[in-house]
C-alpha cells in the first residue's frame, strides 16, 4: 500500500488527543492483520492508547513487531506472529496470552489470508455478551467478496485513500490517525449496533 501520507492535522487537534475515553478498551484485545504499515501502527495506537492489548499478525515477525511495538509503548500487553501460522492456533495462543480476541482489524490484507482468519475468528466460542467485531480496511476499488454473508460478529468496511484528499474538497492528505479513529469508532461500545456498513475515508469528491 502507499504510505506517502503527509502528516497534516485535521482542524484543531492531532493524534495526541484521545478519541475515546481512557480505558474504554481496557478489557479488550484487538488482532491487527497488516504488513506493519503506518496505518496499522496508527490503528494500534488508537486502541492501545485507551487500554487495549494488541496481537499483531504480519507477513513476517518484523512487520508484526512494528505494530505490536506501539502497544508495548503504551504499556499494554502484546504479541506478534506471522500469518503463515495456523489462524486457529494463533487465536488460541492470543487468547491464552492476552485474552479472547474482541476485535479483528485487517489492513489491506490479501483476501486469502483474511478469509482464513475470519473463518478461525468465527469458530472461536465466545460469551453471549461479548462484543466481537471486525473492520476490513481496503482501497476504494477493492471488491467485498470476503465480507459478504452472515457472520457471528459485526463486520464493517472502510474504504481508505489517505492521498486523494489533497486533490479533493478537504484539500489535504489524510492522517493515519484519522483512520485509527474511524476503526476505533466502529469497534467502540458506542457503535456496537453498527453492522454491515461501508465508510469512505478519502477526503471527499471533487
Amino acid at each position, binding site marked *: 500500500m502507499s504510505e506517502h501520507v503527509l502528516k497534516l492535522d*485535521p*482542524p*484543531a*487537534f492531532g493524534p495526541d488527543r484521545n*478519541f*475515546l*475515553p481512557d480505558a474504554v478498551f481496557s478489557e479488550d484485545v484487538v488482532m491487527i492483520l497488516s504488513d506493519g504499515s503506518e496505518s496499522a501502527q496508527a490503528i494500534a495506537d488508537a486502541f492501545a492508547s485507551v487500554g487495549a492489548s494488541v496481537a499483531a499478525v504480519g507477513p513476517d515477525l518484523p512487520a508484526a513487531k512494528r505494530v505490536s511495538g506501539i502497544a508495548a509503548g503504551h504499556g499494554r500487553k502484546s504479541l506478534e506472529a506471522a500469518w503463515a501460522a495456523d489462524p486457529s492456533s494463533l487465536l488460541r495462543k492470543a487468547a491464552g496470552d492476552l485474552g479472547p480476541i474482541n476485535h479483528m482489524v485487517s489492513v489491506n490484507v490479501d483476501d486469502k489470508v483474511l478469509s482464513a482468519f475470519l473463518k478461525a475468528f468465527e469458530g472461536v466460542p465466545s460469551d453471549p455478551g461479548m462484543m466481537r467485531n471486525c473492520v476490513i480496511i481496503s482501497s476504494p476499488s477493492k471488491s467485498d467478496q470476503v465480507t459478504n454473508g452472515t457472520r457471528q460478529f459485526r463486520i464493517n468496511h472502510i474504504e481508505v485513500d*489517505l492521498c486523494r*484528499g489533497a486533490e*479533493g*474538497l*478537504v*484539500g489535504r492528505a*489524510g*492522517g493515519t490517525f*484519522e483512520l485509527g*479513529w*474511524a476503526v476505533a*469508532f466502529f469497534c467502540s461500545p*458506542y*457503535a*456496537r*449496533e*453498527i*453492522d*454491515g*456498513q*461501508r*465508510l*469512505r*475515508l*478519502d*477526503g*471527499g*469528491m471533487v
Partner: protein
Amino acid sequence: MSRTVPSWLDDPVCVVVGHGDGVEAAAHELAAAGATIARGPITSDPAAALGAIEAAEKAARDPVTIVLHASGGQDVAATAYGKAFTVYLENRELNGAFLLLEPAGTDARQALVELSGPRLRANAIATNYAYGGPLKKLRALGALAAYLASDYAAYVYGACLGVDRSDSQQGHP
C-alpha cells in the same frame, strides 16, 4: 437515554431540522457530545433557513457549525438549508458539517455532491431507524451522527452510512 457519547464536539452550535425519534436521538447524542442544539423549521426557502441559522447563532452567542437535516425523503438535498448554510459559512469564513438523516433506501449521493464544498463537509445516514426503533439502535444512530459531525471525522466527506444490515439490504448505502 442515560448513556452518552464521549465529548467529541468542542461546544459547536447545531441546528436540527426535522422530526422523529431518530432525529431526537441524534440531537440528544450531539448535545451529549458537546453541541448546543437549536431547532430550525422545515422550509424550502433559503432566506427562512438562513434566518433560522442566524437566530440560532444569536441565541447561542456562538456561530453555527453543524446542521442536522431530516426531510423524510421529501428534500434529500436539503436545498434551502444547504444554500443558506454555505452562504452563512462563507460570510463568516468558517467551516461546517452538514448531516443528512433520511430513511433507508434514500440515495443521498447526488445530494452530498451538491452540498459538499470547501467549507462544508456533508455526510448522510440513511436508516430504517430515522423515525423510530429500539433504543439501542437509536443510540447507535446518535453516536454515528456525533462521530460524523465531529472533527475526528474531518477527513470523511460524502459518506452515506446506515446503522445495521437491514439498512444495507435495501440497496443503499
